[in-house]
């Protein structure tokens, strides 16, 4: 349990309740718990997405590496009002080469997460728009998103914004 929960943002807040900006080294500590929340959510959809005990140090390491990687994009969403400067969401994406297909550069959204209180008010859309812009600026000709096949909320979120299934990953434990 988190040591202190935030009060809900004021009910009359209009527009996206968040502000999105590129992540900094100093955000890693705030991003990691959100990243782990997302992975634990994924755990709900398939036993093959069971989160490892050492996920936390890995998360910190990976986020830190991506902050230094020109082929990666990490953005954070900050709250507004009383939650100004509190990191309430993030998105993590990286560029991938497509040696056989065109467009040649794909921007893959690997993680996108917003704390529940900030959802359904345009914050997710804002994160998606910003990350898409950043990927495009890095030369991506297509943007894709990875998430558990059973996550219907994610399916709907992306479908509503023009995404369609292109490839599938099917798994069988060994």
């Amino acid at each position: 349990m988190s040591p202190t929960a935030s009060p809900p943002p004021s009910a009359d807040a209009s527009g996206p309740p968040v502000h999105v900006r590129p992540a900094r080294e100093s955000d890693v500590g705030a991003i990691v718990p959100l990243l782990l929340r997302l992975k634990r959510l994924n755990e709900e959809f398939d036993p093959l997405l069971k989160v490892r005990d050492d996920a936390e140090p890995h998360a910190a390491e990976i986020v830190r590496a991506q902050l230094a990687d020109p082929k990666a994009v990490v953005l954070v969403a900050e709250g507004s009002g009383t939650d100004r400067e509190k990191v309430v969401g993030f998105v993590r994406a990286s560029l991938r080469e497509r040696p056989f297909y065109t467009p040649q550069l794909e921007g893959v959204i690997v993680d996108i997460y917003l704390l529940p209180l900030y959802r359904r008010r345009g914050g997710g859309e804002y994160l998606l728009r910003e990350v898409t812009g950043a990927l495009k600026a890095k030369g991506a000709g297509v943007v894709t998103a990875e998430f558990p096949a059973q996550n219907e909320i994610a399916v709907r979120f992306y479908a509503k914004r023009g995404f369609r299934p292109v490839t599938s990953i099917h798994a069988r434990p060994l």
Partner: protein
Amino acid sequence: MAESAPASPTPSRLPRRRSRSAEAEADRLREGQTEELGRRAVELSRFYAGKIETVPKVPVRSLHDFSLWYTPGVAEVSRAIHRAPELSFELTGRWNTVAIVTDGSRVLGLGDIGPRAALPVMEGKALLFKFLGGVDAIPVPIAVNSPDAFLATAEAIAPAFGGINLEDIASPKCFGILEELAKRVEIPVWHDDQLGTAAATVAGLLNALEVTGRTVREARTVLLGAGAANLATARLLLALGHEPGRLTLVDQHGVLHAERDDVDELSVRHPWKYRLALRTNGGGRSGGLAQAVEGADVVIAASTPVPGTLRPEHVHAMAPHPIVFALANPEPEIWPDVARAAGAAVVATGRSDFANQVNNSLVFPAVFRGVLDARSKGMPDEIVLAAAHELAGGARRKGLTAQHILPTMQESDVFPHVAAAVADAAVRLGLARVRLTHDEFLDRARQRMARPARLVRALARSHLTQPMPRSRPARRPA
């Protein structure tokens, strides 16, 4: 709160003050009594081979009458209903018949014991339905292994019934089943473990607030336990205008709040709890019960019964003149005398041997009497709240005190009023197939609720029900 049968004839309204050893002795006695009651119940179930039967309600003067009640005459009745399906409420017993549907996945405190083992409980429920409400209730325990199969089955049997009472279904699937079934059928659907308990709780709470000079809008309320009953109570309280921010839920993981570690998991597995996590707990509290009760006006505990879950220091930490509902059965989360000694102004439990029993049986027979008399097409929360308000009003008419915030089971003249208020609500909401005045509904409810007791007495007098056999003494080891 577990279902409890009508109260013992002389419930004590006196606060109990007992030493710890006396308490332990009382517990042993109660355990002994429960064991004895169980033994006797098995004996009688064998003797009577079940608790209910169907009986014709029309004269059969000779076998010739069969041609009226059955073929060929009955064919015309069928044709009429085929032409106008709503006539099934007029030309058959559908209007007064309720299905008690369960998958046996959470029976009393026994857990997932399956449909066969659930049947004796459903028979008992049918008996209460008839005896208290004049409702013909048919036990329908079903062997299904998914909520979808449950829904399909319940929907498929709906044409035979004027209402559906869902019973003893595990949380959280009970929430989705109730919501979805209510959308699919044009008869009232009720889940007693949610709505019966919640309506009785809300009724008691309205009066407890009144006794202590509070209103729902101002109250800060803690719900301890986030099962079927308390989540329904939360919903009803919000519908009554309780400030969402002033409501805090606490479960086995502590205070429910929007940033709790399991909140994403809840969004997938338990959307009802998830939505409450986002809406409630305005002060941004976290931690456990101790943090939640700080300054609270009301605690409603409907948890897995662990005595001592609520402690005197929790009551001390609440606002002055706090209200404590400890509804776990058989052992409340805190004993009433302990709660009062710690400062509680009003205490309610689920038990008939203390004052202020929060009991489903105060609610479900009257609610079904009301919706059946109005032949209501549904059971929205407005109807449930109408029942709660009327139940609270009934207690007030009899004299409202901290020891009497709810009618007792003996104050049964209140129940037809609850039924009439429910029927009125169905009319007001445009759900009633039968629209009568309040007094007409009240008259019908009185007659229909009084008849079964006469029937049972008459059957006993004429020896059509066998007298209860003497108890055989329990076999004791030599």
